[in-house]
């Protein structure tokens, strides 16, 4: 337009400069707003960590790791029973979830691939990955707690396993897909049966990635509270070795103690919160470094 009518250039000059300034303003707004948004995210994480450290460190005493949780209103005590209960349930949960998740991920990457059933399973696994964890608590309550007539550490572990499985399935499949096909073909060319190719070649090549998936699953279930409310519940003493009855655990302990009116309980809740958050952040950072190594291989 401007080329055909040279007059237009001068005619539009003032308007052009106005457009330019509005362009500059919208650009500035975008830059400032998105920088502020990022800053906000960093500040929130910093504020959460600061809160945990300030409040949590006060409660860090040797007794924290040796004594069980005290009764309401009493002094002293620790959270050793809750730490042990959490460790036991998380461990059992991950022991149940790892073989299932590993095999299901292997099916999707090695056998099912683009078949219809694999597509459906992959899709529903992704849905399960973000399903509300409280519904999983209700499921395990109906499945185990009601028939058995008692809360138990087993029910808690199963609930945690159900949350861990989709995470492991997802990472296992993704990592197996990164393994180049010629490696599998080389194995098959040597006469190795398919299961041996998968176990000795594919799994081994993707081992760091698979381990990452398990660490991520650990990080995910270590802080889960909602599914434990109706399955493992909590209690204030050492738990039965057979895991029947309420099993104390960190997340539910934190929930109950933080909302209690007793200062001693509250300070134990803060100490537990610091412990659990530091553990989970350490697991997540570790997973990130392991996966980076796998991708670079």
């Amino acid at each position, binding site marked *: 337009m401007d080329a055909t009518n040279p007059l237009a250039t001068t005619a539009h000059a003032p308007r052009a400069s106005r457009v330019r300034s509005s*362009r*500059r303003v*919208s650009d500035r*707004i975008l830059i400032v*707003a*998105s920088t502020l*948004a*990022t800053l*906000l*995210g960093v500040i929130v*994480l910093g*504020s959460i960590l600061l*809160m945990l450290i300030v409040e949590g460190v006060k409660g860090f005493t040797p007794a924290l790791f040796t004594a069980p949780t005290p009764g309401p209103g009493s002094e002293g005590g620790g959270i050793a029973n809750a730490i042990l209960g959490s460790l036991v349930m998380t461990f059992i949960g991950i022991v149940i979830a790892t073989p*299932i998740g590993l*095999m*299901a991920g*292997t*099916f999707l990457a090695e*056998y099912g691939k683009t078949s219809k059933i694999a597509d*459906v*399973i992959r899709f*529903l696994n992704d*849905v399960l*990955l973000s*399903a*509300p964890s*409280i*519904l999983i608590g*209700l*499921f395990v*309550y*109906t*499945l185990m707690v009601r028939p058995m007539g008692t809360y138990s550490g087993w029910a808690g572990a199963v609930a945690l396993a159900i949350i861990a499985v*989709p995470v492991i*399935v*997802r990472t296992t499949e993704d990592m197996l897909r990164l393994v180049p*096909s010629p490696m599998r*073909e080389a194995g*098959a060319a040597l*006469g190795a*049966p398919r*299961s*041996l190719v*998968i176990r000795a070649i594919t799994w081994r090549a993707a081992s760091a990635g698979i381990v990452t998936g398990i660490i991520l699953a650990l990080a995910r279930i*270590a*802080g*889960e*509270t909602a599914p434990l*409310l*109706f399955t493992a*519940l909590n209690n204030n003493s050492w738990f039965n070795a057979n895991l029947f009855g309420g099993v104390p655990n960190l997340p539910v302990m*934190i*929930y109950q103690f*933080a*909302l209690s009116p007793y200062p001693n309980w509250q300070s134990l809740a803060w100490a537990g*919160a610091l412990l*659990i958050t530091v553990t*989970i*952040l350490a697991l*997540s950072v570790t997973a990130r470094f392991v996966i980076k190594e796998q991708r670079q291989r």
Partner: protein
Amino acid sequence: MTALTHSVALARESGVAARIAPSKTGDRLFQGLSYASALLVLLVLAGILGSIVYGAWPAFAEFGFGFLTSSAWNIGTEQYGALPAVIGTVAAALLALLIGVPISLGIAVYLTQLCPGWARKPVAMTIELLASVPSIIYGMWGLFVFAPLFARFVQVPVSNLVEGMPIVGTVLYARIPSGVGVLTAGIILAIMIVPFVASITRDMLDQIPTVLRESAYGIGCTTWEVVRHVLVPQASVSIIGAIMLGLGRALGETMAVTFVIGNANRLSASIFDPGSTIASRIANEFNEADGLQLSSLMALGCLLFIITFIVLIIARLLVRRSKVA
């Protein structure tokens, strides 16, 4: 991959068959196990739905469709309705989107367009670490750090300002400015969904061919114009998917909400007032409930299942196989 199947088949048909025969059972067993494990995922999902419907049946049989529209929650008279919890759930989740989505998009734009190279990785990692903080910690932060500040610097001044005004005077008026309430829950949920939405959006923006961006800059576009007219139209479907995924999380989030929403059973017109969501009510009452109250809570769980799964399925269809942590 077909080459692999083919070569194994070839090996079996030829003379080698005798040598690999012993491992054939193991081979079949391995494949069978992996298939069974994959099917277990379907079974679990079906089990969740089945068990909740089973548990909820007495409530649905007793109240019928009235359960959806009733706002009663009376343990003494055994009258239960879902309306306040459903509205609370939807309201908190929508507030979370309203606040969280612009922040997420801002972070994604900052990380892909503006951030200097050396800071990109640490900043991205900080945002992603926010996603792994357990929800109970967000609840504690919300109740003990955020709520007092929110009451003092937002609820009190805003309530004083709008008092007596039509509509805003109702919606933004805190009868008891304690800092907890539906809006507080929405803000905490917003913080919780930001890392998810931001990291998916960032991945989507990163996947857009650089040539597109460069040619837009080349004809003199500003960063805003590149984002608005080139990047966003390219990634819009995935961004909507990411937002739906965030919505799915916000709808089902339990512990953080239970800490900060105030857990009131009645319906209030003000977003500063306490309320409850489906998840928070189940978390609060389930362990002490039995009989019709228990199955009413299960019925609430059933509604939550339906709402979140519809949202999540739409989200997954939109995002497809993008990276989702």
